């Protein structure tokens, strides 16, 4: 996308920030977004006040996409059906409660006599749940898992299991390659692993584009408009990244819902 001259102040602020600079680079590199979407995005950006810093510039961009997420996101080509047959995703342990439908979550947590606190708390030490506890909880859970967050962009990022399988023995390395720094910074040193077959997914799988990654500096947009998938930007140099795709938030029955140690 070409940045209109009226948005140069905004682009200048974005360029000044480390994460924002990467997001701006994605926007610039993406020549595959429909003209209509592109024009609407920049029109709304022009209507915004001049941002005072990189953070504000990023918020403006996110707000535009967030307010009309149905229009701006998941607009990339559909990923061919013969790849990404098994989807892989990692989440924070604290998201375990949010990953289950409310009624199922209450039922499950009541069974164990634990509260949201036990899973969400990462700083205080008060009867915390350990790795084995979480493993028992995930083993017991057999319902649908809620993916995405309706209240924000509601995009679900997934990796292709086939490309990750050989790396699963070293979860830390895989998280680095997938650019998941938030999980690496978890004090619990563990993460949830979610696997589900694409055929079970009611939502279509898309190649992520720049608007999908508007809040995600770890994503590197594919400049090739015929690309079959997106690509991650690893946290450390020396890696090529891994194929990534997106779909809208939904409920899905998983093949694997487990806890892994980050070692």
């Amino acid at each position, binding site marked *: 996308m070409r940045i209109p001259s009226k948005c140069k102040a905004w682009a200048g602020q974005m360029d000044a920030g480390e994460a924002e600079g990467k997001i701006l680079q994605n926007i610039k590199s993406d020549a595959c977004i429909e003209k209509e979407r592109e024009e609407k995005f920049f029109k709304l950006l022009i209507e915004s006040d001049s941002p005072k810093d990189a953070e504000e510039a990023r918020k403006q961009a996110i707000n535009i996409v967030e307010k009309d997420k149905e229009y701006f996101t998941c607009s990339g080509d559909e990923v061919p059906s013969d790849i990404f047959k098994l989807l892989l995703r990692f989440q*924070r342990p604290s998201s375990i409660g949010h990953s289950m439908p409310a009624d199922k979550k209450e039922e499950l947590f009541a*069974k164990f006599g634990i509260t949201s606190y036990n899973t969400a708390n990462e700083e205080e030490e008060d009867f915390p749940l350990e790795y084995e506890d979480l493993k028992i909880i995930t083993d017991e859970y057999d319902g649908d898992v809620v993916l995405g967050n309706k209240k924000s962009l509601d995009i679900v990022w997934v990796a292709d299991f086939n490309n990750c399988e050989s790396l699963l023995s070293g979860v830390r390395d895989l998280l680095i390659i997938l650019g998941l720094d938030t999980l690496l910074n978890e004090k619990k040193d563990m993460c949830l692993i979610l696997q589900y077959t694409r055929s079970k997914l009611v939502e279509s799988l898309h190649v992520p584009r720049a608007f999908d990654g508007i809040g995600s500096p770890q994503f590197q947009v594919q400049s090739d408009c015929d690309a079959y998938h997106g690509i991650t930007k690893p946290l450390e140099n020396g890696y090529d990244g891994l194929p990534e795709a997106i779909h809208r938030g939904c409920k899905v029955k998983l093949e694997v819902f487990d806890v892994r140690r980050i070692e």
Partner: protein
Amino acid sequence: MISQEEVINNLDRHTPEQIYELVVSGFKGEGFFPVQGGWIEEPPEDAFIQIYRCNEISEEIRDSIIKGCIYLYERVFNFLSLSSKERIEKKELVQKLITLCRFVDIAKPNELEGQAKSILRFALEVQYLEPKILGAVIRAARRYSQSGADIPIWEDIIKRKNFSAYAFQALLKIDPYYESIEDHLIDLWRHQIQDGWPINVPFLARRMAQQQDSNDSIIRVLRAIQLEDNILWKKIRTNLLSNTWTEKWVESAESSEIEKQTVKSITDYIINKKEMSYLEYDDDYKIGLHKVLESEEIDPLYLYIHVVGKIDDEKRIMVHTITAQSPLTDELKERTFKTAFDENIDYLMKSIQKTFEEEPEQLIWGDTINA
């Protein structure tokens, strides 16, 4: 949970008055914080949790959150006073109450301890209160430090099938060695297996062991269940053997050391059986009795019953060992003492009682020892 830094960076867009309004409106914080890719799953109230936890926020902001919560709590008291039908009609307030409880559950503001505990006491008195409301209130109140004075509340809640696991964990938190904790675990196991209560007792047992830093309590509980209700034990046993993390409990409960423990339990069983009222005992007798048992070797071909006699004039404890050869000796040879005992406890007890009453000379009596 969303990072504190991300939320605090967004705070400058809001005045304390706006924060108060956001809390009162049910922690409506959409758009409060930036989205990081697709990886943040948490609901908006988590932003308020992080704000409240941050040491660097101004007192005005913190106060506005607490004032908003207190206002919501006042509305909750009024709400709980309504009839069941009226409560159902106020769906929006139900959601606000649940969100408020989640905030308290995680942020645990000291200023709200009184409200959280008061609302729980109040809620327990409300008839036909919707389980999701009571559950939210229980979870929030449980977050605060509990003391012995709170035990009656949790003893009440442990009898409610949907919340008994919360109560067990709360009692564990008050005192992992609480005197009735093992009895509660036995009751919960019975309720889970026989009444279909939605609880995971092995998980609770494991939490107890974690807190006590020992599996001894679990093993004692399982042995007590074996003695009291063999049908229940078989179901629990099957359940425990299906998990790698619980099968070792079965091994311990059925290990070669079991006989000595079992004899102790048999003795307690007899002593506690009301129909054998001719046995006189008190705690001193039990202590003496256990001293004897600890020094004995157990022969699995015989059923040893220890009967406590009376204290004589010289203040000695009369401990008699009855060695009753079971009519089922041949079967006992084929199987373990424990298994045979489990399957024939009623028959054996009746047999011994009958012999005791009609042919006491058939029983082999042990020595009297000094206490």
